[in-house]
């Protein structure tokens, strides 16, 4: 029984979430192969070869895969699928985009966003914004699965798998990449940071996020936001934490000026310690917070930054 894990990367570095998806593959059990599909992505293949428990890295290095367009990647993965009983990708925007396409091409269902593995065919996943947890048994011969990385601990990287190059390149010819507008930040990635500080509507404008950045710099934290703050245009979409944004589970999550709608809680309530700073003592965020400060964030934040 073999498992194919799709590697998340940007053609130069492997995303740490892949180590957690491999952990899910180990929980299923079997021979684990990693697929690195991209362009000029040999350094990613080298990194992937070091993931513990991986026996083979398949590299599809071709211009057709540079931007990981779903139309092309899904054909590649479907071609490889014959050898595998499980196909796993991390439930980030790349995996969410192409994996259902793979499942439909293989005429199987997809199990999305698993947070635990019960057995080779039974998986646990949150539904209703995490307000219910479903245990689902797949009846399909092949299992196409996306993995929520916060549910698994990263595996170590002291292995040495063989690297196999794949020559075939498939361009479906129905879509092209136009441009990327990437947010540049020197802070840690939201999904990987051990501390996250997020702002909501209470921040009032984008400039005030500087108050969070000062604290983030002292704590080595990533900066996130609630949907309200993104919708209001304070900060870009890639900072959104929540049901349909990023799911984070850091050691420390500091929610500032965030009321705590269920959709936001869905993205952060598995954090180890939650701190809430809000002037409304009745805000639902206090019901999930370990420590709360009821007060004006414009007083609390500068004091916190000064004393850290």
């Amino acid at each position, binding site marked *: 029984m073999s498992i194919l894990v799709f590697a998340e990367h940007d053609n130069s570095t492997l995303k740490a979430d892949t180590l957690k998806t491999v952990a899910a593959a180990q929980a299923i059990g079997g021979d684990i192969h990693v697929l690195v599909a991209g362009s000029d992505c040999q350094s990613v293949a080298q990194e992937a070869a070091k993931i513990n428990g991986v026996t083979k890295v398949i590299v599809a290095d071709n211009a057709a895969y540079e931007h990981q367009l779903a139309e092309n990647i899904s054909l590649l993965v479907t071609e490889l699928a014959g050898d595998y009983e499980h196909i796993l990708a991390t439930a980030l925007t790349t995996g969410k985009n192409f994996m259902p*396409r793979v499942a439909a091409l293989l005429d199987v269902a997809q199990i999305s966003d698993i947070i635990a593995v019960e057995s080779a065919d039974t998986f646990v996943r949150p539904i209703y914004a995490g307000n219910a947890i479903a245990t689902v048994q797949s009846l399909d011969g092949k299992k196409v699965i996306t993995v929520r990385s916060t549910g698994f601990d990263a595996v170590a990287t002291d292995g040495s798998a063989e690297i196999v190059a794949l020559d075939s390149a498939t361009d479906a010819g129905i879509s092209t990449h*136009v441009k990327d507008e990437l947010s540049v930040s020197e802070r840690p990635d939201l999904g990987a940071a051990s501390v996250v500080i997020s702002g909501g509507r209470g921040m009032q404008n984008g400039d005030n996020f500087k108050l969070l950045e000062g604290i983030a710099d002292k704590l080595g934290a990533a900066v996130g936001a609630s949907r309200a703050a993104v919708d209001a245009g304070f900060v870009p979409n890639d900072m959104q934490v929540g049901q349909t944004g990023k799911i984070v589970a850091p050691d420390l999550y500091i929610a500032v000026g965030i009321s705590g709608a269920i959709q936001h809680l869905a993205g952060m309530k598995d954090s180890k310690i939650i701190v809430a700073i809000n002037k409304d003592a009745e805000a639902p965020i206090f019901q999930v917070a370990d420590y709360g400060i009821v007060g004006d964030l414009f007083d609390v934040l500068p004091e*916190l930054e000064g004393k850290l």
Partner: protein
Amino acid sequence: MKVLVPIKRVIDYNVKVRVKADNSNVDLANVKMAINPFCEIAVEEAVRLKEAGTATEVITVSIGDKSCQEQLRTALALGADRAIQIETDENLDALNIAKLLKKIVEEEEPQLVILGKQSIDSDNNQTGQMLAALTGMPQGTFASEVKVEGDKVNVTREVDSGLQTVSLNLPAIVTTDLRLNEPRYAKLPNIMKAKRKPLVVMPAADFGIDLSPRSTLLKVTPPATRQAGIIVDSVDTLIEKLKNEAKVIS
């Protein structure tokens, strides 16, 4: 061009769902239901394309029992021209939904199919991509901007690292993200008018598709609950607690 908008009836987004005592599923009895928020954004986008003269007709479709006609009427009140209900009492998984929708696509031949990126009940995020695979169409998922230009559509997508724009050959599939548009409220005259717009009912059983389930729901449990913590009276106390009690900062 025709635009097809599949929509789903789901629990209202403000309602916090409860799990049934026997752990068989969530309890939806007497719970307020609504059009899935992402589907509402899809309807709005299609109607705007029509208002801009790009689209000629907006067709909405939903799969479910009679109750989903309520959401189809909502879509008609928002500006869709006609509606199709694919009638079934079964709770179908995304692959079977996509197979039914494929038949509608083949019959109606829309140039654009706009769907919500996910429904807020099952949180699957699958149907649009699966329909794209089955119809061989390109897909622009998690869209924050949709621009039809000639025989192509440019879709700006919300991705983990920021925004990505792709160009797709028409016909194409688009799935909506939150910031694509802000849906309008249906005005009373439009709600009245919607009652007279055509709504066709087609039994799912007549589609000739094997709709047997691909998975079994073994149980549904409530999530681990967090205990509410304490309110601290000062920033000093907070820092002390984080350092010495929680040990998450040094």
